């Protein structure tokens, strides 16, 4: 089974979304919050295991075994392993493009999905497009490694429209971040 390594996500997302804001700058802003929060242990996902992923059919989730790479307007498209919402590809947008008039959220939740063409796992950022009413087309709710609210960056129920001019949810994209 491909072990999902959420430990590695944060820094990657930081680089993707924070642009020129350095990690040092961010940490300095943590201030009081860091003091109040105990240092977290690493989540119980073994880094050694992650280094030698088992991507045999027996180790793949039902979604991964049935995923396809041809049609990104279908719920079984490989990148959608943890998406919840309407697909922007069905709403006039693209796999990493918001439909006209909507706005990509600067933050997102993430998934780790296996591309059946190369058998490799990739980190996917599900960035919501915000500021327009729900598109209503191609509703999907896949839950590979989707967790609950206390681990929000792996939770697909949150409306990830923070930092946008409107929090109205329109649709979700599935952006490639890199190899998982």
């Amino acid at each position, binding site marked *: 089974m491909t072990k999902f390594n959420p430990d590695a996500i944060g820094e990657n997302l930081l680089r993707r979304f924070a642009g020129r*804001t350095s990690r040092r700058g961010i940490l300095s802003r943590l201030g009081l919050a860091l003091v109040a929060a105990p240092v977290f242990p690493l989540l119980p996902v073994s880094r050694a295991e992650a280094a030698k992923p088992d991507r045999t059919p027996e180790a793949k989730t039902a979604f991964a075994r049935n995923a396809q790479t041809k049609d990104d307007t279908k719920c079984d498209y490989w990148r959608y392993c943890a998406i919840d919402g309407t697909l922007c590809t069905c709403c006039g947008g693209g796999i*990493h493009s918001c439909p006209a*008039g909507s706005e990509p959220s*600067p933050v997102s939740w993430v998934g780790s999905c296996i591309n059946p063409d190369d058998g490799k796992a990739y980190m996917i950022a599900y960035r919501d497009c915000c500021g327009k009413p729900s*598109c209503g087309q191609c509703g999907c709710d896949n839950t590979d490694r989707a967790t609950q609210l206390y681990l929000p960056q792996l939770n697909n129920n949150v409306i990830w429209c923070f930092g946008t001019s409107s929090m109205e949810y329109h649709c979700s994209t599935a952006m490639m971040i*890199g190899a998982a």
Partner: protein
Amino acid sequence: MTLGQAKLAGMLLASVIAGAFAAPVLAETGEAEEATVMTMDAPKSGWFFVRGGWGSNGSSIFDSATGKMVGMIATGRDSDLGIDPAGKAYYVAETIWSKGNRGTRQDMVSVYDAKTLKLLTEIPTPGRLVIGGLKTNFVITDDGKTAYDYNFDPASSVNVIDLVKRKFVRAIELPGCANIIPNPGVGFSSLCADGTLATVAIKGSTQEITRTEPFFDAAADPIFSNFAYDRKKKQAVFLTYTGLISVASIGAKPTIGAPFSIQQAAGLRVADTKPLDINWYPGGMQVMALHRPTATLYVLMHKGEYWSPKESAEEIWAVDLATKKVTKRFPIKDGGGNIEITQDDAAMIMVTDNKNNARVIDSKTGEIKHTIENAGGGHITVVEPM
């Protein structure tokens, strides 16, 4: 660090805290993608603009050729959509309360850029009728300079909005009448409870209201409010509950052509208002669509008795307005409540049913080209030839 950056950093640090990310950095793979935002083509003749059902806040745009959604315009509940004839903007007449179900009432025409679909401005208005499903309450003039927005509170009036200066001009009282037909160079015309067509000739800050002779019975055999208007020919096409079709020439002094029966045009018995008389009747919310280039009217029809003006359709009837003949009848499988047709040579019909599903039908053959689930339950708009 700008304020915006600080805010963003504040958000991102939260992720750091929440997820325990004191971990090594992943190498950049070069595969990462950028988030982008699409733009729209100018409004196309092949597009259908379909309102969502009750509770929906958007109108989806579908391409009749592909059946695919190409975008969405934010149209709050019970709003009305207008298309700038020049294709530069969409206008949404809407009513919003400051706290959703309560608070301060705000009426406005919201202006969206047709290319980016971004909100350009809001034009405050003193009110409008909150109603679903009517296409004749908010009308843009042929020159694109003026909008007329029907108001009912419950006194009847029409708000005049200057779309160039983007400001409300004034309200014109219109007692006993409703539904707006553009009347270029004159003002607008409306149907009235006394069975007449009223014409409001606007002259600066005054207006003169004239009426035709009564030509229909508003209580016994009403004309559907969702009538059709051909801007090129300056003709309105009216249809009554029994199926009487009449064509009106719109101008300073409108004239109404002699009505004919849609049933008779199909070689059937004229329909009556009497109970127990089973016949074909028109029914639906957006009950008919006019293909202006061929002067063909497509009507949603069902079998039944009179007083069934909202009944789901079983067939689409094509009426040639020149020969006054029904030239085609297409069955509809799952009922239909709204019909519209593209104003190009393709002449593609869309019909939506009460489950919010849409079908795109070739008007020449009756063939279903696309079925679109959850397309929307409200009325359908197309780009009109000017």
